[in-house]
């Protein structure tokens, strides 16, 4: 036990609390929850259980750590797009966008209006498809497979549109500093997008009936994993989780980027702060996102270039922004997704630091909320917090 990976302070503390003395702590038992588990996806929680109640939870992330931030320091600015988008798999457009926004700010580019429209649309599409994914995940966690299967199938429609627009299904490598990589394929694509939005909107009723208005969904989520406003702010919980505690903070409203200050949408807020509130908030947000997409389609893409006109872009690998740093953040379905980019004037970023929303609600908050919860609540809490392990690991 000599080379145990625990620092000395800890070991002392453990000794003080009589932790090592017994090989088996008899009153509680340990349950390893994940990573090879249906509910956690590449994430591990070590649960100290008493009966069916959790006494203590320890989060063990890091199964997805690839060292993006180190890798990004070794790759040119534009190559990094292909790398960083892998941080958030269900919404790969979000890391693309924050990185591009930050670089745009450092360089001082005014992104063309058409590109802005496309970026906004792509982000909203990402949000809707991520909600679809979330419905599937949440349904599976509470044992309701039907709406999830439907939702994942609806997501495929968005995937098809993405393929047509960007060429990729999951990883699009589409938004780049200065604009987007390709233009919209044509009006047919816009029509298809509108059809898809209408279609999914029409299916909202099904989801309501089967999932969001289900007696047992209420039973399972009501009063589970409650956090209050103060707790949420202190723990930097963002996104739907924060809005479920009564704080109307939405990056799209409070720090508007792209077209969001021109769009009409509401930020749903609930006060309860329990899992049910988090579920319902997500449901309302899905509705709002569909509405935003409709507005964007009504607005139509402005004409013009889809990429800034800059001589430096001729030799992309050698593209050098000026010295400087910038922080950009967007509202993803999981919360406030931010990136801090530092440039030292060379052709590679000096430092890229990504703030995934799960970093704040996936570790300390999760550990706190799991205390005293039932074992059956673990997946519910995990999924209503919408914990995304790659955010934490990167």
């Amino acid at each position, binding site marked *: 036990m000599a080379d145990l990976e625990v620092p000395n302070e800890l070991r002392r503390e453990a000794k003080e609390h009589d932790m090592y003395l017994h090989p088996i702590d008899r009153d509680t038992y340990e349950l390893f929850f994940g990573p090879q588990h*249906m509910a956690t996806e590449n994430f591990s929680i070590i649960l100290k259980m008493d009966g069916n109640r959790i006494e203590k939870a320890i989060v063990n992330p890091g199964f997805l750590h690839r060292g993006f931030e180190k890798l990004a320091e070794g790759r040119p600015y534009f190559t990094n797009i292909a790398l960083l988008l892998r941080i958030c798999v269900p919404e790969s457009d979000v890391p693309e966008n924050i990185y591009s926004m930050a670089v745009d700010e450092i360089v001082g580019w005014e992104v063309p209006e058409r590109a802005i429209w496309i970026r906004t649309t792509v982000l909203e599409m990402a949000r809707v498809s991520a909600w679809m994914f979330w419905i599937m995940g949440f349904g599976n966690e509470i044992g309701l497979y*039907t709406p999830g*299967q439907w939702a994942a199938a609806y997501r495929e429609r968005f995937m098809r549109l993405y393929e047509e627009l960007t060429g990729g299904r999951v990883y699009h490598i589409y938004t780049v500093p200065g604009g987007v990589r390709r233009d919209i394929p044509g009006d047919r694509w816009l029509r298809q997008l509108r059809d898809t939005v209408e279609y999914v909107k029409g299916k909202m009723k099904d989801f309501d009936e089967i999932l969001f208005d289900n007696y*047992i969904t209420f039973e399972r989520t009501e009063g589970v994993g409650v956090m209050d406003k103060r707790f949420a702010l202190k723990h930097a919980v963002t996104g739907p989780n924060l809005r479920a505690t009564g704080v109307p903070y939405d990056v799209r409203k409070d720090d508007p980027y792209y077209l969001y200050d021109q769009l009409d949408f509401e930020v749903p807020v609930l006060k309860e702060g329990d899992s049910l509130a988090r579920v319902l908030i997500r449901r309302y947000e899905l509705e709002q996102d569909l509405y935003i997409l409709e507005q964007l389609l009504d607005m139509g893409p402005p004409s013009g270039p889809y990429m800034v006109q800059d001589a430096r872009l001729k030799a992309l690998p050698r593209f050098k922004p000026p010295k400087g740093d910038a922080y950009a953040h967007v509202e993803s379905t999981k919360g406030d997704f931010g990136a801090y980019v530092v440039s030292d004037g060379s052709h590679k970023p000096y430092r890229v630091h990504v703030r995934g929303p799960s970093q704040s609600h996936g570790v300390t908050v999760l550990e706190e909320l799991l205390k005293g919860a039932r074992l059956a609540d673990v997946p519910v809490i995990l999924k209503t917090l919408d914990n995304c392990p790659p955010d934490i690991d990167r």
Partner: protein
Amino acid sequence: MIDWKLILEVIGILLYATFMGFIFMGIERKAMARIQRRVGPPLYQPIIDTLKLLGKKESISHGFIYDFGPVFALGASIAALLFIPIANFQLFSSNADLIVVAYLLEVPMLGIMLGAMSSGNPFSAVGVQRGLLTMVAMQLPYGLALIALIQHWGTFKLSEIVALQGAQGWSVTVPALLIAMIVFDIVFQAMLGLEPFDIITAPAEISMGPMVEYGGKHAAILFTQHAVQIFAETAFFAVLFLGGASNLLELLIKQIAVLFIAIFVASIYPRFTIDQAAKFFWKWPTILGIIAVLLTV
């Protein structure tokens, strides 16, 4: 004197029940897939699965009880089946009554739990805990539904219950027994281990619970057991409330009808937690059961 006819019947029914049980499991998966707008696996998929599990070249054990558990479960399921009148085949049903069958149908659970416990896996242990609490919870409404039935027909014998239903109409046509059937149907959901009472396996919570350590031939035995059990339970339902059957086809139609109710309920409800399930069972189904019982006194 060896009753060759009976022996042949027993073998025939056992083969039929196992096969149909697998097909029922296939129907379950197929119907679920259709509800989820998928194509779904072929109906005989569970048979392939079981064959594959049986064909595993390796198997692990945690001691004698671990091996004994599934074997005991399958044995008890087969025993239960033999006492249920299957259509026009009476088998042993004149030699045991409803209570015996009801108990025999519960024994497999004990077998599975025994095996699961002996693995020492905490997930299995939580599954065992949940399984037994589900059983405790559902026992009261289940018992009340059976009592209402017995009180109405005045007999414990399954074969007589079938005969009486043939003469006086199905149990469901009696209002009190209709209530009993609703209660029984709720309990039935838990007996089949389907949502909202699939608390025992709960893949997202405890990764299959008691089944988590089973693989290879043990799992194959448990799958066979599940097939026999599903056949026996649906037949039990049909015998008790749907007037039994005079031939296997009629029985099959009734069994599938029963199964479809279960599948539809399962596909639109999430899973309860175990304490919620207990509270639920002791609330509405119990009240309904008491009403049914008092109506039939």
